[in-house]
């Protein structure tokens, strides 16, 4: 017996040695494979490197080609536009030192400060002219080119009907940029802080069209510069010694991991590997909130979660039916029991956090436009249904469905709404979860009855939400069509008179909610976690937390 055992043990030992032998060569290879790898232990003493996770690989670090948060969080540290925001969310001069606006509110003339690119070259007005025209070039096929359509001639050029020479952005000299708009735009300065409006270096881009692909050739004008980009693994930024306001920057660099799994990222934050984590798993945020964990910050967000009702489908074409469905939803329960991330029950479609013409909170004047009244909802629902010649039984037999993309949070909210409608209105709807792309496809094709929707604003103005429901709009999946609404919105879009603009927007939002074009559920928030030794991080409603001015104590 002992002999057998010895044989087997020897066999296993040999195997184990083989394993060790096979695996060990990988060890010395590692440093060669990742020359830029940096771990907390390797950070030189005294260097302040902020560590965090950017939850997705950027599709590009060229501002013209950026499409979303996972790009803009990095770009906002490596570039700066004509204007930027302060910690309070006020738009303030960035690369522009000053500007003037013509009397007809159409022509802005920006004067640039002495700013430099990260390679030491001066940032000139010619760079801005070049960048904006480049972003509009149809051959570049930039997804976000339409953000520049406010410029005169921009849309025509981008759509192939006009010439680049007719795009009204012009460098009068190295320091002066003249921009003429199609129509007065009350929030144009805010737009110049958006990433599509960031400049790129004319000399660098013309010399090398692939400049943005490698850190060695990536040139920016922001507080930090790109030093390492290991695709899908991590991105590193270092302080840009050529930045004009370098004295405001406390960090030596920022390390962004690229880990898509929220739970893994959270484990790394919890284990002390990150200083800030901007995307928290929903359950974690809820638990931190319950525990009053001081590391949790409920950041504001310009975003609305809502349900589309397909106005082409009977009885959802009836405003009474739509209103009754909205009245039968208890939003407080949804935000307090399901989402649990400090979200606010929706009071309309324009989220909290945007200011009006007086600088006060926009929602203050417009008030709560959402009524919740389960008892009244039932009567109104039956009335609306009767108008469409339908009974409750017929409604229930029609097999209406709430469509949402596969995500646990959407599922839970849909279940809650389903139950609220069953209890309060006595109706049955089914739930259907599909892949995100399939949901988009079905919405665009009008192949749905009720569907989950959401929108996060691009700029700090109620218009970023309100113009979604213009008739024929690309995102108007509910098919809302109201000429009065369109008139108010288009007038607001075409005037620089802030009183008219905001009055119109308030009226339009009231109209939208009277018609209940979509059923608003809640206003998004962005809960994030910051370690207690980190200072200087703040959150603007349309951006990820600003980490540019952070300090590590």
């Amino acid at each position, binding site marked *: 017996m002992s002999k057998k055992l010895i044989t087997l043990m*020897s066999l296993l030992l040999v195997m184990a040695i083989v394993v060790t032998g096979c695996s060990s060569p990988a060890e010395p290879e590692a440093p060669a494979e990742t020359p830029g790898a940096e771990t907390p232990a390797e950070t030189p003493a005294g260097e302040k490197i902020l560590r965090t996770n950017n939850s997705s690989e950027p599709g590009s670090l060229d501002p013209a080609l950026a499409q979303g948060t996972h790009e803009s969080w990095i770009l906002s540290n490596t570039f700066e536009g004509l204007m930027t925001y302060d910690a309070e969310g006020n738009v303030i001069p960035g690369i522009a030192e000053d500007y003037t606006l013509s009397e007809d509110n159409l022509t802005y003339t920006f004067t640039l400060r002495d700013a430099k690119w990260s390679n030491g070259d001066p940032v000139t007005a010619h760079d801005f002219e070049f960048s904006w025209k480049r972003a509009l070039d149809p051959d570049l096929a930039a*997804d976000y080119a*339409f953000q520049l359509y406010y410029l005169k001639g921009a849309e025509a050029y981008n759509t192939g009907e006009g010439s680049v020479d007719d795009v009204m952005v012009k460098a009068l000299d190295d320091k002066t940029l003249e921009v003429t708009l199609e129509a007065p735009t009350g929030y144009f300065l805010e737009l110049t802080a958006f990433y599509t409006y960031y400049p790129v270096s004319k000399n660098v881009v013309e010399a090398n069209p692939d400049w943005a692909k490698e850190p060695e050739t990536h040139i920016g004008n922001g507080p930090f510069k790109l030093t390492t980009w290991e695709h899908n693994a991590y991105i590193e930024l270092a302080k840009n010694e050529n930045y004009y306001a370098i004295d405001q920057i406390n960090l030596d660099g920022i390390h962004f991991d690229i880990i898509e799994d929220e739970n893994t990222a959270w*484990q790394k934050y919890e284990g002390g590997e990150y200083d800030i984590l901007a995307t928290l798993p929903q359950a974690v945020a809820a638990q931190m909130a319950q525990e009053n964990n001081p590391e949790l910050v409920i950041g504001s967000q310009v975003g609305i979660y809502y349900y589309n009702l397909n106005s082409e489908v009977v009885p959802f074409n009836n405003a009474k039916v739509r209103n009754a469905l909205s009245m039968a939803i208890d939003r407080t329960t949804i935000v307090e029991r399901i989402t649990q991330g400090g979200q606010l029950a929706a009071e309309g479609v324009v989220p909290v956090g945007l200011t009006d013409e007086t600088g006060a909170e926009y929602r203050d004047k417009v008030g709560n436009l959402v009524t919740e009244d389960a008892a009244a909802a039932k009567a109104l629902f039956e009335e609306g249904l009767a108008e469409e010649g339908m009974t409750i039984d017929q409604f229930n037999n029609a097999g209406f469905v709430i469509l949402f993309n596969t995500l646990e949070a959407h599922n839970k909210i849909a279940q809650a709404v389903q139950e609220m409608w069953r209890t309060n209105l006595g109706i049955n709807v089914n739930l259907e979860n599909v892949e995100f*792309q399939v949901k*988009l496809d079905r919405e665009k094709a009008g192949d749905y009855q009720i569907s989950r929707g959401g929108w996060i604003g691009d700029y700090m103005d109620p218009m970023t939400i309100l113009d979604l429901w213009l008739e024929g709009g690309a995102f108007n999946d509910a098919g809302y069509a109201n000429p009065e609404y369109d008139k108010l919105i288009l007038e607001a879009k075409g005037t620089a008179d802030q009183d008219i603009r905001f009055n119109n927007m308030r009226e339009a939002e009231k109209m939208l909610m009277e018609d209940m074009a979509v059923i608003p559920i809640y206003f998004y928030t962005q809960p994030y976690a910051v370690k207690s030794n980190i200072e200087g991080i703040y959150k603007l409603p349309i951006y990820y937390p600003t980490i540019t001015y952070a300090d590590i104590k």
Partner: protein
Amino acid sequence: MKRYLLKRLAMSIVTLWAVITITFILMHSVPGNPFAAESKMPKVVYENLQAKYGLDKPLTEQYVIYLGNLLKGDLGDSMKSRVETVNDMIERGFPVSARLGLQALVIAICFGPALGAFAALYQNKFPDYISMIIAIIGISVPSFIMGTVLIQFVARNVEWLPVGGWGEWRHTVLPSIAMAMMPLATMARLMRSSMLEVLGQDYIKTAKSKGITRAAVILKHAVRNAILPVISVLGTTISNLLVGSFVIEKIFGIPGLGMFFIKSINNRDYTLIMGTTIFYAGILIFMLLLVDIAYMFIDPRIKLTKEGR
């Protein structure tokens, strides 16, 4: 042998072509497209993008263009990344996945068959039960649970290894173990049953009666014959491991090829879907061919000549 190889090669090319064609058709018949998004993108911008990637052309024309480019080794531009082409992505992602896969393979090959052999030699005794419990855990626990458990106990509780990320050798240890568990368990079970069968054969008894030591009987006669079924699963196991696991790569934040499989489908990134599928199919077909050849060397009764077996 030569003729067999040529025949197999021709069959491989036909198989690959079939995979390409079927994937191309299926991909375009699934709802959605790479540029559909919850955004306000105007129609013209959308059309610009369609034109840039040739999606405005008829499907047959797109197919012919794709095959033409493929013959030149060009898998096209990714429709989501403006930084890398599909060739770049595979070139970068494959070594990462392959390294993890090879480490996992080594773990599986070293411990799987050994565990199975050990269990067979001690059939229905304590070591057998322990080995088979390990095998059952390996087979029945999905890799994402295995990964999460490893993260919790090895990385979080005792902090021996990092939770996730990429850059150093220590980042590869937990994902390799998590990936190895399933093939390790499969091999252990196959080896056990095959070993039990072999041990009951007459030639083993003959060998024993000749006075050959037990170790020599086991190693020279039993293991050599019992390992055949394990070899037969190696082809698929290796190709599965080499191209990475979406789940493991996602959980551990690894920049490998596995991530691209699911992400490309979710994003409807047509060129990346095609590229990763063709790459995986190519590896699988090649591995199956190698396994057939390996068989021939291990078991001389298997002939690959025109006479067949």
